């Protein structure tokens, strides 16, 4: 086996150490065909030269779909012919990244036959990434995937594959069913996911509570984060138990509360819920004693993205609180309106967050017919440059 592997003294260094080694993985994959071996060779050369050896991607894909495949070509095709094409396919993961071994084995079987045998489980948007195949294998791979009911994910200026935290499946704090919403939106927007027609990419991410375990507030054009609007549920006995077992409630819990709305007299924990900002800290520290309230839903925020080109954004509040219940009409209506305005007036390669900042949040709200509320801003404007829209004229 090792015989067909190139000489890679640099990469071999990365087989050492206690963290799982991707070099070992590539070497394992090399058993299934020559692509991984060539990848190893080219990567060794990159390590020696401190530069990548991939050409700028070309447009490749499967019929009827505008995205989901990232074209990739080696710039050393003579030397590494087996990776002269080395495209990746983005496969829409099941919500919450739960699998049966059966399903995964089927994917492995397909990829053994059709590709390099290498994957990313998962890509940072959330897809299953099948790493490296040739143009002629794209369509057959897709045919095989159809057989096991896995569909292609997003790429290019389309809706990207939505993702979510495990939510109600494995977490006591989920304020709405993240996986159900993710599945529903994914199915509802199949066309937008597969056929790029937006000014630029658009991402949904759903987290069940403000801990935001899918980093939605930093990485999604629409971030749907669970929260509640009534009172934190407190089990005073359990609080005392934490205290008895050595938790310093004053310094570990209360002094870390950002809204300073808690008091502890050694016996009872008092929370002034009208000031609580639902940060989760107290609940995180005492999961047996505290739980989110019962009137649950989500805060919907918009616009986050990486820095290119206006600088990075965090999502900002659009709906302070809404109930999240099928068929999710409120969300879909809003999304449809947002996309209409953005598709109509957005510039090429302008994310929706950038678009909103360019046209002004107030104007954007007008366009999508949502009333401004103070929860949308950290504070009102500081500069006096108001575009008053009307003026009186003399008769």
């Amino acid at each position, binding site marked *: 086996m090792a015989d067909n592997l190139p000489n890679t003294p640099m990469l071999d260094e990365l087989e050492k150490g206690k963290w799982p080694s991707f070099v070992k993985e590539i070497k394992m994959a090399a058993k299934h065909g020559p692509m991984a071996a060539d990848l190893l060779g080219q990567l060794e050369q990159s390590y020696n030269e401190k530069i990548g050896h991939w050409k700028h991607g070309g447009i490749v894909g499967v019929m009827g779909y505008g995205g989901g495949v990232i074209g990739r070509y080696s710039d050393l095709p003579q030397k590494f012919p087996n990776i002269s094409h080395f495209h990746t396919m983005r496969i829409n993961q099941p919500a919450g990244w739960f699998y049966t071994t059966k399903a995964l084995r089927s994917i492995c079987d397909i990829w053994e036959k059709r590709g390099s045998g290498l994957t990313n489980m998962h890509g940072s948007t959330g897809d299953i990434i099948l790493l490296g195949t040739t143009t002629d294998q794209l369509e057959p791979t897709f045919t095989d995937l159809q057989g096991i009911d896995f569909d292609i994910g997003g790429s290019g200026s389309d809706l990207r594959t939505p993702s979510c935290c495990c939510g109600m499946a494995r977490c006591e704090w989920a304020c709405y069913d993240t996986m159900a919403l993710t599945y529903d939106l994914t199915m509802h927007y199949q066309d937008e996911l597969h056929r790029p027609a937006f000014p630029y990419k658009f991402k949904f991410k759903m987290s069940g509570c403000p801990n935001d375990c899918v980093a939605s507030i930093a990485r999604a054009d629409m971030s749907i984060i669970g929260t509640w609007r009534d009172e934190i549920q407190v089990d005073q006995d359990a609080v005392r138990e934490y205290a008895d077992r050595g938790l310093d409630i004053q310094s570990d819990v209360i002094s870390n509360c950002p809204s300073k709305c808690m008091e502890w007299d050694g016996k009872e924990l008092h929370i002034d819920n009208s000031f609580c900002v639902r940060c989760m800290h107290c609940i995180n520290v005492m999961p047996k004693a505290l739980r989110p309230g019962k009137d649950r839903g989500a805060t919907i925020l918009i616009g986050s993205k990486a820095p290119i080109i206006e600088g990075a954004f965090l999502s900002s509040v659009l709906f302070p609180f809404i109930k999240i219940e099928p068929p999710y009409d409120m969300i879909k209506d809003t999304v449809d309106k947002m996309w209409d305005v953005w598709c109509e007036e957005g510039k090429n390669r302008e994310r929706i967050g950038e678009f909103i900042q360019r046209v002004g949040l107030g104007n954007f709200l007008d366009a999508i017919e949502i009333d401004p509320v103070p929860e949308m*801003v950290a504070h009102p404007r500081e500069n*006096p440059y108001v575009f008053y829209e009307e003026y009186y004229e003399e008769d």
Partner: protein
Amino acid sequence: MAEAMQERRTDYGPPHYEQFLPPIIKENYGKWKYHEVLKPGVMVHVSETDAKLYTVRAASGRLISIDKIRMFCDLADKYCDGYFRFTSRHNVEFLLSKQDNIEPLIADLAKIGHPIGGIGNAITSIVHTQGWVHCHSAATDASGLVKCVMDDLFEYFVETKLPGKLRIALACCLNMCGAVHCSDIAILGVHRRPPRVDHSTLRKMCEIPNVVASCPTAAVRPATVDGNPSVEVLEENCMFCANCYTVCPSMPLNDPLNDGVSIWIGGKVSNARHEPMFSKLAIPFIPNNPPRWPEVTTAIRNLVELWANNARKYERMGEWINRIGWPKFFKMSGIEFQKEHIDDFKHAGLTFKRSTHLTF
């Protein structure tokens, strides 16, 4: 003439302050140890030498006649050995070395219409500007509106019953000569009608490229009007900053139907507790209603009282709102949150709420 110029003195600068300091200050300069507020408007500073300096602070409307200055001089001659000062907010301060002179001075001040106050947790004079009394750019009057507001808030000047200091400032246009942008409450004159171009004078009075360049939103464009070079204004791009008018008299924004004031709150300058903060928009627009601007005085009284009744001791307006959050402020004040409150200038995105830290 050349000779005359030679003799003529220039650049000699202001008189040295030392000649204006009363003896007790000269002797204790840099030696003050602590102070105490004795009653509203009166404080004492105690020196390391044990000397005591009493200050009586009297209100002033700032726009004063030489007659009034002479009256102040009379009182200073009578009680303060011929010295007195003004403050950075335009009040008058009488500096006494004899405690017994305090009450007679206050009585004399009352006679000429100048109440004392403004020290400690009080409202002091409103920093303000020229308005219709002297400026071409004003969207409202300054002195008159200040008079109305201070008449209305008078009790908070003569007593110290507020949680902390509350600084009000007024500027009659966006140039903000009153530097109102960091005030607990700022009253800001605003225009709301785009400049009306006087094509007949523009060519003579203004340089067209300068005018075009002056507009931050590119709302001003060169144009030919009646065969003559001039400019036109894309009205929907105008944000009424008047920068074009500052560089070109032929583009006035003043307009009786559309001028008025906006109210801004929560700014501060001192580093005490919270860092300095800009004021934020509370009320986008109130029309001018001279001579007593009742809508403005009511709005401001409501803001002052809302704060006074709800803030903790020492909490300035902005510190209080930071603690409770703007959504609560809007709910408590009854002010409607509108599109205008949402920033849409350069740093707008940074003013959006970028977390789920919300109260319900």
